[in-house]
């Protein structure tokens, strides 16, 4: 520990394992008011989030969140890449829900192109299937890291155990565990592999057993309830004023879910419930996330049923001036171009070669205009404000990331409470710093 004396305040720097030194040094200090900088490198702040806490003893009198430590300029970068390449950027924003980022962006581009109705049914079904799989993996991380931050390490280990299964499925279907760039303007990059239905079914059956373990471990656990109940309280008025959506809004009992209210990708054809809770607290948000995973499994089952009937159906719009032409296949080294596609463009169709060349180098032009598309991500309303100047590159893309907006509630949720409750409140917001900072 090091200490420095300024004119009006003494500053201590603690690095861990030296709390005794700090309490010794503070023995003679009469003033109980302490400002603690927590993070950005701290295991309990849910990523590179910096918390500036003003403490009176153990009570938090003022809490502020400092963000920007993971700002990567994704929105600016996108302005110098083609519309299709944009998906590879947005997928990296909120890295726990990449499929949602891609879908929000792609729906925006499709709206500007005016091809929303032409996207094939199979592409929509696969988008829904992957979004719900992604919702499960994201909620699992929310619950797992939330548990870890409370000290419930078992919740963390089992959460990541199941998430690994989700990532395996993502790798199987899209080729990558994260950062998929699989949803493309006009459809999806490539059809799903042959065994998809069987493997996803297997996963669903397993999850139905595993999700019960979370309920058995946590739902009535007195320590868990003691830490979560009545902590991070925020009612409906507060949520709407601060723009909070997702599980936090639904924990006030208001069943607002964009999948039901403003359906996209064919969500109106699926049978599922909007989960709510009425306690406005962290425990309610935990229960909502747990129950939403069951609903996601239900939606995935329905999507699989549809997928079975859509064998061989197209997954890209028919318009060859928009549809991404390139195809990949797995070679002996684990990567490679599809030989069928190369035979097609090099040997069979000169037009296909032109389309391939034009789209891969130049991309397509999107008519000038702007669109705002919002979808229900695991954290709430994920909006993409897409502006085109009629060129081959996005003129401006802004993501209204729910983590960014929801994190504003840190102060109201934790001021007046204990230091330990700040951690619980933030875990219940479930911010993902990649999405907050973009």
């Amino acid at each position, binding site marked *: 520990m090091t200490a420095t004396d300024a004119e009006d305040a003494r500053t201590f720097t603690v690095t861990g394992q030296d709390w005794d030194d700090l309490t010794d040094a503070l023995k003679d200090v009469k003033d109980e008011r302490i400002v603690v900088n927590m993070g950005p490198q701290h295991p309990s702040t849910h990523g590179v989030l910096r918390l500036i806490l003003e403490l009176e003893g153990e009570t938090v009198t003022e809490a502020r969140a400092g963000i*920007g430590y993971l700002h990567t300029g994704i929105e600016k970068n996108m302005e110098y890449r083609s519309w299709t390449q944009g998906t590879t950027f947005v997928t990296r924003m909120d890295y726990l829900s990449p499929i949602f980022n891609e879908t929000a962006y792609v729906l925006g581009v499709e709206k500007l192109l005016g091809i929303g109705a032409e996207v094939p049914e199979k592409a929509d079904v696969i988008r829904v299937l992957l979004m719900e799989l992604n919702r499960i993996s994201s909620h699992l991380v929310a619950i797992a890291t939330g548990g870890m931050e409370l000290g419930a390490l078992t919740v963390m280990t089992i959460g990541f155990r199941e998430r690994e299964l989700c990532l395996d499925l993502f790798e199987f279907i899209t080729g990558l565990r994260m950062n998929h760039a699989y949803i493309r303007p006009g459809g999806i990059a490539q059809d799903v592999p042959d065994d998809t239905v069987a493997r996803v079914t297997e996963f669903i059956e397993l999850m139905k057993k595993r999700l019960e373990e979370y309920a058995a471990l946590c739902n009535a656990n007195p320590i868990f309830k003691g830490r979560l109940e009545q902590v991070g309280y925020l009612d409906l008025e507060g949520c709407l004023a601060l*723009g909070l959506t997702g599980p936090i809004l639904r924990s006030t009992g208001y069943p607002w879910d964009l999948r039901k209210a403003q359906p996209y990708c064919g969500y109106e054809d699926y049978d599922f419930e909007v989960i709510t809770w009425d306690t406005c607290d962290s425990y309610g948000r935990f229960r909502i996330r747990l129950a939403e995973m069951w609903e996601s499994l239900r939606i995935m089952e329905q999507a699989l049923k549809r997928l079975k009937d859509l064998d061989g159906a197209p997954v890209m719009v028919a318009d060859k001036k928009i549809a991404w032409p390139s195809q990949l296949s797995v070679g002996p080294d684990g990567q490679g171009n599809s030989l069928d596609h190369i035979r097609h463009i090099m040997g069979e169709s000169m037009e296909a070669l032109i389309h391939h060349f034009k789209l891969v180098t130049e991309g397509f032009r999107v008519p000038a205009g702007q*669109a705002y598309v919002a979808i229900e991500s695991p954290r709430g309303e994920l909006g993409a404000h897409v502006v085109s100047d*009629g060129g081959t*590159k996005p003129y401006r893309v802004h993501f*209204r990331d729910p983590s960014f907006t929801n994190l504003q509630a840190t102060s109201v949720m934790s001021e007046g409470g204990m230091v330990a409750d700040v951690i619980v409140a933030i875990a219940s917001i479930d911010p993902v710093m990649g999405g907050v900072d973009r």
Partner: protein
Amino acid sequence: MNDQNIGQNSGMFGVEDTGDTSGYGGLTRQHAMPSRTSDVGVQPYGGWFKEIADALAFTEAEAVIHRGELTFHVRRERLLEALQVLRDELRFELCSGVSGVHYPADQGQENVGSELHAVYHLLSMTYNRRVRIETSAPDADPHVPSAVAIYPTLDWHERETYDMFGIVFDGHPGLTRILMPDDWPGHPQRKDYPLGGIPVEYKGATIPPPDTRRSYS
């Protein structure tokens, strides 16, 4: 009002200088944002577009209907009145945030004096409607009134827009940078923000900034 021109590209492939060998180098294409209209009540959008237009008529807002979305361009002096009416009378309870867009003046005469746009996305949960409010400020006087008092959620959103575009939201409780470091010079998302190249340790080579590389517009 006429279409708002936001640029043009020339040639067959939008390539500048020697890249375009198509023989169509003289071809130019104008790009314009969707035109503004005063007749909002047009079918097939139903009555509620008109209802909002009537409620906002006192602000002399200009409407754009494009891809089924309704946008109102409001002068910045009337912005707060418009938002207040939308929140209190038309029940747009939730503001999804504000995002900035920079249309530099050299891209079209119409942009002069309104280069910086602040775009507010509003959602009415009661009626399940969305509307967009757009206001603008000139580069020389980048001031827009802060709407934090109406929609507290705009606190961080306005800070981000200030950080990225330099739009000063007058009346914001603490307008500081939020994503970039406090001492960062400039506002990175503006179109005139200089882009850096990347030096490579090989015979003094550099990777040029993206806006000077060969690209298609």
